[in-house]
């Protein structure tokens, strides 16, 4: 298949998954018994007025068409519970800016720590350095995010008192960033090592060695370049894991980001906010995956040769 054709197909697929997400979230939210105003101490008449105001008295398919239309125009409705009456898009854009600051920093940590870790493990294969990195990364991908957060809190805030627990104080973003970065860093290290070991025995590397280059140059310059290709595909899931990691890190460390909003929307059953956030996150993750896929196809000529 031609590269262009493949890309078009991928984009098409991404759009379908996005529409499916909107559909599923919408209908699932509608299956929930009761509506957001049931819990309020309001008379039946008031509830009816509220329902009419938010269009909840219309048949489901009308609501769905309306919602779909609005979402595609960038309007995701208003929050019912958490911040009554405020537009979801406003909440999302405002809090996501904060989440993104943390997320991008964590992403940079993961890339600039994880990939060299993997290279080192490949360079010193079966030596102590490799074993240490292997153990550390195995432990890192096995600890749930909130356990990391809890450990960090206990050690650095409660016992040692080095770092503030509140996000707004200076240095407050260090612990959330570490919490976010540990899983992707360790995953990247494992991935890079596996990928490096795969190319290690190829002819072009033997040539570089024969030319008299140091093993360090061979690994970090020549092997890494080709091993980076499979790693590109992980950047999509990496974004997803940092985003979902944000739910935990932001709630534990009280960061006023989108992740914390999502978690509190769940506990307060603010359905429109949950839907809006889900759709926003999904769009982000799906487009990141799409981007990585296209990049992957474009970077490696071997893939679309056969």
């Amino acid at each position, binding site marked *: 298949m031609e590269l262009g054709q493949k890309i078009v197909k991928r984009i098409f*697929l*991404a759009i*379908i*998954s996005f529409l*499916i*997400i909107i559909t*599923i*979230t919408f209908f*699932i*939210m509608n*299956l*929930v*018994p009761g509506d957001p105003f049931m819990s309020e101490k309001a008379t039946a008449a008031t509830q009816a007025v509220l329902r009419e105001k938010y269009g909840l008295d219309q048949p489901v398919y009308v609501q769905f068409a309306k919602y779909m239309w609005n979402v595609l125009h960038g309007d995701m409705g208003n929050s019912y519970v958490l911040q009554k009456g405020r537009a979801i898009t406003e909440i999302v854009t405002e809090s996501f800016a904060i989440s993104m600051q943390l997320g991008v920093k964590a992403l940079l940590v993961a890339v600039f720590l994880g990939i060299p870790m993997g290279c080192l493990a490949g360079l010193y294969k079966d030596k102590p350095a490799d074993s240490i990195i292997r153990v550390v990364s*195995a*432990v890192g*991908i*096995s*600890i*749930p*995010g*909130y*356990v990391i957060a*809890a*450990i960090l*809190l*206990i050690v650095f805030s*409660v016992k040692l008192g080095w770092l503030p627990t509140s996000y707004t104080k200076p240095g407050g973003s260090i612990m959330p960033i570490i919490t976010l970065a540990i899983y992707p860093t360790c995953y990247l290290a494992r991935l890079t090592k596996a990928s490096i070991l795969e190319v290690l025995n190829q002819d072009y590397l033997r040539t570089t060695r024969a030319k008299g280059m140091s093993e360090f140059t061979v690994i970090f310059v020549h092997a890494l370049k080709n091993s980076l290709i499979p790693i590109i595909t992980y950047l999509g899931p990496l974004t*997803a894991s940092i985003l*979902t990691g944000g*739910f*935990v890190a932001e*709630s*534990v460390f009280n960061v006023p980001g989108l992740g914390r909003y999502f*978690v509190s929307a*769940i*506990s307060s*059953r603010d359905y429109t906010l*949950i839907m809006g956030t*889900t759709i926003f*996150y*999904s769009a982000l*993750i*799906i487009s990141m*995956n799409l981007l990585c896929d296209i990049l992957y196809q474009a970077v490696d000529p071997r893939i679309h040769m056969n």
Partner: protein
Amino acid sequence: MKSITPNLFSLQNRISPESFSPLDPSYYGKETLETEEVGFWRASWRRLKHNKIAMISLCLIGLIILFAFIGPLFSPYTYDQQIRGDEGMFPTLKHLFGTDKLGRDLLVRCMIGTRISLAVGVVSAIIVLIIGSIYGSISGLFGGKVDTVMMRIVDIIYSVPEILLIVVIKMVIDQPLEQLVSTVDFLMPLQKVGSGLIAIFIVYGSLYWVGMARIVRGQILQLKEMEFITAARVLGCSQKDLIKKHLLPNCIGQLIATVMLQIPSAIFTEAFLSFLGIGVSAPLASLGSLTAEALGGIYSYAYRVISPAVLISLIILAFNLFGDGLRDALDPKMKK
């Protein structure tokens, strides 16, 4: 006669006439292979035994299973028993892990929590295995348009961020499911398991099977071109038997390795749901919900976080390492 001095540079072989004499008859019969035949499982086990990390993890998993299933028998308390006067105790001899604010013994709760977490992992992995292998093998075996359509569906589900959908679905099916379980007669036995747990199984099983389906399909595509499948077809084997008796048993190694790595991932997901407050419902506890519960009082009761947190990390770590080792042992080709 002049004696023959060996010429150092001669290329001639010096062969003695004895080499051409017939062998003793007793020699025959020894021409069989000296080594015993080693089957698939024996060979895999041998490879696994040499992997120290995997064996340590296996022992650890065994210990954890004992802790979870035998442990509660030796405890004087039950997991939901609230002991008056023992509320919020630090770890002592009476309560090794301390008690929570309702006076429940944390050691027993950790044991039960481990049990639940293990159950979540194993059952979810089995659900994924069943759906994924059936779907994948049908898609791979039939090929053509069936394959294209089935794989498109997989592609779409694959590109959906599953953790978000899990949160959304889990939140919503909890209540209706509870109603269903408590009203419909033949679902009554499930009440003991708890609707919260069943919801986790459903949610996990309905989204995570796609990875499995892809792996199985890839294997089937390779296998179905082989001669033994043609032979089975010629002998009149039905499609169903072809999958059941010939194709799936031949990718068993891959299946087991993938399922093994599915377990920690399911435990991880449950822990995440527990953190969001939509995991297992009280008074039942999973390690995830125990940790999440304790996070609230982390400043004054750090010890309550530590034991379930360490346990859950150990379980996931052990399963991850063992799964890796198992994959290498069952499929040595992959390692190279």
